[in-house]
Every structure is written in C-alpha cells, then in structure tokens.
C-alpha cells in the first residue's frame, strides 16, 4: 500500500466508509471523500518535510514491487509508443519549456517523487501521487490506472527507492 491506500484501508475497516466513495477517481479527485483523502495524505506526508527518502527493500515483496515498477516505467505502448522513460529517462531534458526530472535515479532534493503531494497552480488543486500518476498515464494516451492499483503502488516503490537521499519538500508548489 502507498499512503493513500493505507488511509483508505483505515477509513474502510475502522471508520466504516464505503471503499468506492474514496477510490472512484473519475473526475472526482478533489470532490467528496476524495477531497478529504487528499487533505489527509497531504497532512501526513508533510510530517516528513525536510527528511530524506530511504524506502526499504528488505522483503521479497518490496523487491518484487520495485522490479515490477521498473518494468512499468519502461513499458512502451499506446498510440504514441510512450513509456514513463520517454520523458523521465534522461538528465536535463524538457518538454516545451517544462523541465523533466530523471526518475531512474535520485533527481535531487524536492524534485520528482520528493515533491508530492503538491499544489498545482495551473488548476488550483492539491495533487497526490495517485493523481499525478493517473494524469501521466493520460498524457501517455494509456487507459486509466485504477485508484490504488498495483501499477500505481509499484511505480511509487520504483521512484521512491530511486529517490534515496532526496529531501522531501512537501507540500510543494507546482506549475
């Protein structure tokens, strides 16, 4: 589980929420229980502000999710043959004028994985990593990853482990 799925687990099993109310992202990021989930995730993540990423890779399950995440990161497909690595596999690249972090390694303090959750000025919303990945896949012209699905967890593990040593600056501000 990532932070958001861990929160949902507690909301469902301890507080009695319906899972669908928390996890149905279609145009609902920022609405209803999803809004509360984003706020909670932002609050909890901000407790780690200033700390450096050091994701564990001690168990077979953690290692497996890293290996799956790596394969997803390089998975080319869709109408344009894009993978995550198309934009995030090299140093110093940009799309139009937007700088692109290299997520195959530690891209630096407060960059990439260490910058989320973040406030997106362009649409006036807080975005968590689930929303960030959902929108990356949209831009890749891929179908949609289900909220909290193993694809999103594995990519989080891959990026988080790669970001070892990067300082979290959450809550960040983004374009």
């Amino acid at each position, binding site marked *: 589980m990532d932070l958001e799925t861990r929160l949902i687990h507690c909301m469902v099993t301890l507080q009695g929420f319906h899972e669908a109310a928390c996890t149905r992202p279609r145009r609902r990021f920022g609405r209803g229980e999803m809004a509360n989930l984003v706020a909670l995730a932002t609050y909890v993540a901000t407790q780690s502000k200033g700390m450096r990423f050091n994701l564990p890779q001690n168990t077979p399950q953690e290692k497996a999710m890293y290996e799956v995440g790596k394969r997803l990161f390089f998975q080319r497909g869709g109408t344009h043959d894009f993978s995550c690595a198309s934009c995030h596999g090299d140093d110093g690249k940009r799309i139009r004028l937007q700088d692109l972090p290299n997520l195959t390694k530690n891209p630096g303090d407060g960059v990439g994985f260490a910058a989320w959750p973040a406030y997106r000025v362009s649409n006036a919303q807080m975005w968590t990593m689930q929303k960030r990945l959902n929108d990356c896949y949209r831009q890749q012209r891929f*179908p949609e990853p289900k909220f909290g699905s193993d694809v999103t967890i594995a990519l989080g593990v891959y990026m988080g482990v790669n970001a070892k040593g990067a300082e979290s600056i959450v809550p960040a501000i983004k374009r």
Partner: protein
Amino acid sequence: VLAACTSSPSSADYDKLTADVVKASFQDRGIAKLDRLEQDDANRECSAADVAGKPLDEKGGQGHRSGQHEDHQVAFGRQVPGRLERGRENCPERSWPDLERQGHAANGGNCYNCHQISKEEISFGTLGPSLYNYGKLRGVTDPNAAASKAIVEYTWGKLWNSRAYNACSQMPRAGHARAS
C-alpha cells in the same frame, strides 16, 4: 499475487508478475481502451532492452526484423500529420487525438514539444534533436526539386515510422500507429 514469488525470483518471474499487475490495474477511459496496452514486437523488444539496461543497436536491423521498414515503404505518399512544404504551420500545439476528435485527420504533429525548429518559436522541447535549419543543413532549398527527392523521402519516412530508421527511437510513429 506477490505470494506466488519464490525466495529468489528470476527476471522472467518479474515479467510475469508485471503482466498480471497490468492486467488487474487498468480500465478503459474514453477512447483509451485496454488494447493500447498490447505491445507489438518493436515496443516489446525496446521495453525489455531498457529494463535490462542493454539498449538495442540504434540503427537499422531491428526495424527490418519487426517489419517496420517494409511498412513505411508500402505506405509512402500517404498523408502524415503536416505537409513538408508547409513547414511550421503543421506543428501546432494540439495533439493528434484532439484533432481527430474534431475531425481533422492529419493536421499537426506537436513537433515543438520535443524539437527546436524555427527560432521564432522559443517554447520548444529538447527530448529530440534540434531541427533548426534541417533542410538547409541537408542541402535542400526546394523540396520539390529532383535533387531533394532522397532527403524528402527519408524525412517523410521518418515521420511515418521513426522506428524504421532507429529501432527504439522515442519518436511516435505518426503514420504507422494509425495505419495499424
């Protein structure tokens, strides 16, 4: 799913696990259906090479092996997004799917997202090489002249199917993908 792993899984085990995870994780969204996850040989081999950290040979062979080259030769002359002689105006901001929804079947390639072309457009990306003075550097002053035929055909082919020239080019196959 993870419980199926042995204590020392192989790369093939992780490949299988990844396929299972993909199958369980995605859903259709609008025009983006699950079939977009199905990889052709070119994408499968390039993805595997990236995971292994061993890039395929950049030029030539791979494109032929996976039938990419034949595809673009058969298709030469069909319309790609934009026309060479109209240059800059064929590289608008809008993406191909957006244009398709609006009924413009082939009206722009989003070139500037990744390439510099004209100095007048300062908002260009750097994922691809600069194409500033692309024709001039290749001796082309009139794309319709007989002397320009080879480079014009190469350029058209690159737009139609970039992978025919460079097996794992990151550039979308503008014609090939929509033809299939």
